[in-house]
């Protein structure tokens, strides 16, 4: 297990380095015009532009820039933001948004898991009955209706009927988080309900469940000890990734409710050619993705001893 963990962590490092390098090179492939604002492009002379590019080190050979970039990563120096917050340390820019996204995302994740699994259990117990159809109807509705329409409905209902704040506010984070959390949860609830139901129904139809019934085990006991436990294993794999991705925030929800989180940051940074912010986010997201998969594997193995991550010199 230790050997496996070290191996996976080294793989993670290599993957993140490759991702960071690709993003670095892609950013350098853009025309240097993207370094300037629209105003600067129009008003600065070609000489002034060239001088600013030189001052930023963007006219050096790409290899030289890349080596400088690796050196910065090793020193954990991610540089300063150029456009998102001019002159401010990238770590500080990201740090201020990180906690907001994570708090909302984790809340939504926990709610989604509880509510999604709860809906699923109700649906499974009442398979092909009214409650099952209502659950399926919800899942179809959430997946069929464009997100922004759902969010608008939540906004109008929540603010007009329930009197909840329409926008997120750091002065009033509790009540003002409710609508964004509801929107973040909508799709995840449907996701968990849909897949857990499917796995549970599959389990219910298996022979060992029929045997347990014949042997006289109670329905509740069968559901809790066998069906739910086995049906939950495939979903568990995705929980660490989902948890880590909460840090990344949601572009749509955070924009819609003005949540000062990570969601829109990468998009904004790319549009504004804020190279240091883009590169740092790529490293963070790359790390989150690979670590999330690794943790998912470990968690799945812990829940189901039949699953072996290491066997005969191979890894999953």
């Amino acid at each position: 297990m230790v050997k496996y963990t070290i191996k996976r962590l080294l793989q993670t490092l290599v993957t993140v380095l490759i991702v960071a390098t690709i993003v670095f090179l892609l950013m350098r492939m853009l025309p240097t015009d993207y370094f300037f604002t629209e105003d600067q492009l129009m008003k600065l002379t070609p000489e002034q532009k060239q001088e600013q590019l030189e001052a930023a080190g963007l006219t050096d050979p790409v290899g030289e820039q890349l080596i400088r970039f690796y050196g910065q990563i090793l020193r954990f120096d991610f540089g300063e933001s150029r456009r998102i917050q001019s002159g401010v340390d990238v770590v500080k820019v990201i740090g201020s948004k990180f906690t907001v996204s994570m708090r909302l995302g984790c809340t939504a994740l926990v709610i989604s898991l509880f509510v999604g699994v709860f809906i699923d259990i109700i649906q499974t117990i009442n398979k092909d009955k009214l409650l099952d159809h209502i659950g399926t109807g919800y899942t179809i509705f959430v997946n069929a209706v464009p997100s922004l329409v759902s969010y608008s409905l939540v906004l109008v209902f929540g603010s007009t009927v329930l009197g909840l704040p329409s926008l997120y506010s750091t002065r009033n984070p509790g009540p003002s988080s409710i609508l964004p959390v509801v929107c973040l949860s909508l799709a995840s609830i449907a996701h968990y309900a849909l897949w857990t139901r499917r796995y549970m129904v599959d389990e219910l139809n298996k022979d060992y469940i029929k045997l347990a019934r014949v042997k006289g085990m109670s329905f509740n006991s069968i559901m809790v000890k066998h069906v739910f436990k086995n049906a939950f294993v495939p979903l568990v794999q995705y929980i660490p990734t989902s948890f880590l991705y909460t840090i990344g925030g949601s572009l749509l929800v955070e924009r819609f409710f003005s949540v000062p989180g990570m969601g829109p940051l990468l998009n904004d940074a790319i549009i504004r050619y804020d190279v240091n912010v883009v590169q740092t986010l790529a490293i963070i997201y790359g790390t989150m993705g690979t670590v999330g998969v690794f943790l998912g594997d470990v968690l799945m193995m812990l829940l189901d001893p039949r699953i072996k991550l290491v066997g005969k010199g191979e890894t999953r």
Partner: protein
Amino acid sequence: MKKRTKVLALVLALGMVLTGCGSSSAGGNGSGDGIKDLVTWETSNREMENMVILNTEMANDLNVLGNCVEGLLETDAQGKLIPGLAKEWGTEDGGLTWTFKLREGVKWVDVNGNEKADCTAQDFVTGLEWVMNFHKNGAANTSMPTSLIKGAGEYYEYTKNLPAEEALSMDNTKFLEMVGIETPDDYTVVYHCITNATYFDTVCPSACLYPMSAAFVAEVGVENVLGSSNETIWYNGPYTLTEYIQGNTKTLTKNPTYWDKECSLFDTVTIRIIEDITVGFQLYQNGELDHIDLSEANLRTIWNDENNEYRDQLVEKLPRKYSYQMHFNYDKYNEDGTPDTNYNTAIANEAFRQSIYYGLDLTKYFERTNFINPLKCENNAYTMKGLLYFSDGTEYTAKVKELLGFGESDGKTPVRFDGAKAQELKAKAMEELSAKGVTFPVELDYYIVAGSQNALDTATVLQQIFSECLGDDYIKLNVGTYVSSQTKEVIQPQLHSFVINGWGADYGDPQNFLGQETYGEDTAYYSNNYSNINNATDADLIATYKEFTDLVNKANAITDDMDARYFAYAEAEAYMLQHALSVPTLLDISWQLTHVNDYTRSNAMFGIQNYMYKNWETSVDAYTTEQYDAIAEEFYK
């Protein structure tokens, strides 16, 4: 408690713990005559990026920072200059030398209002040095000082050639040697201009002439100035920025040491970031914003329903300070990189341009901005209405219209629209251009941002207008899209046939408008970036541009008689429009729901102060249409 209820309670409790329950907002409207805590808005694509007023010329930044730092002069609701930090100012040699006498007792404070230093004349020297030092300032705001103040351009070049460390460590000694600024005492600033800049005082509300304290630079360190936060910058304006949450909220709090004790300020101004004005309208309905602009859809919904609760609260906004023009491109390229010869030949023809100038009935286009009073949006001048006045009170663009021979609107069709004349010009253009090998319809390419339904709807209206007014046999308007940057994707590759773009003045002189269109001058913004006239080859077109440029230069040379100067500019502008070198399109007058009396706000057609939250009259109840009409009538008396 039933099991189901327990689960729900658990989930809710967990939610509350994870999200953190804070105290409830203390915001909202104050009592009394007006609002004490204003809540306003900005859309998310206009979030500020910079905390140092001297390092930016973006409206996103300046609309906020203009409340934190104050300059020499302010502007009032009529758009006139009034004392700011300078209590007196003037020139005695026709604009070559300008002297500003500063008020004493103005303090620099930190974000909490604690006094840090006196604001003196030296701070204006430090500020200008910062702007003109290449290594300190990366913004594009050096052009006005360079073209106006002696030695400023030379100092910029000098610092550019210095190593960054040396340039960053420079004090004001070398700067004062090279640049035409002096401080005879702590409360007097004197600027020496390159030429007779009779309008130099109107440059003062622009950020490039704002002050900066040397003690502030010393406190944070020169290399950290650009990365300053709202908590580290110093303030001398009416507010301090006590809260800045990027992408969410900015809060301005009244500065207790502000020099103007007579003015009215809000206790706080909260600027919420919203996704768009549709979401903003929802917030306004919930009482979470004190004003909101209305999209065309929202305006129609309210206007068309007599029982709508907001119908009698619809109020028309004052014009924004931008004069929108259809800027032609005289050196257009196709997307494959080849010159668009057919179009280039056509647009160089005067009759062709004039047929567009007279032939487009833009009423439906105006309706996209203001469908209730579309003709109020009609623009028939190049310079922005209200920029300046003759000594007898005549507004400058009224003189231009008089020279163009335009009368008053009949309220039904645009004043400029002349269908019969346009058809004559069309026939003439087709005859002349056919002889030159031009094929019809001439294709015009107009670009809009991709994914914007609003932009697409407006472009479609424009297409219909071209088709209905000038005929599909003559011109075909194609609508293309760009992804994120019009400048990079369209303007620089010269793909556009025309761009509809608004210019807002940097200072109060027609030169600032007309100087952007002159021929063969590096400083002409539109000529060099949009119209590409300097690359044109048609002799008649170039001759027309040269004649226009001569008229502008003649006006520039008049510095001793302002009426004569303005009249000369008006003649140049009339010449430009008669020859349809550019086609005026729109004045941006839209509708809103508001608790703010816009007629009390600074309303200058130049400078950065229209978002200074000073002396704003507000009402706890939203203004009604009737109230606003009465206010407007009183204002224009």
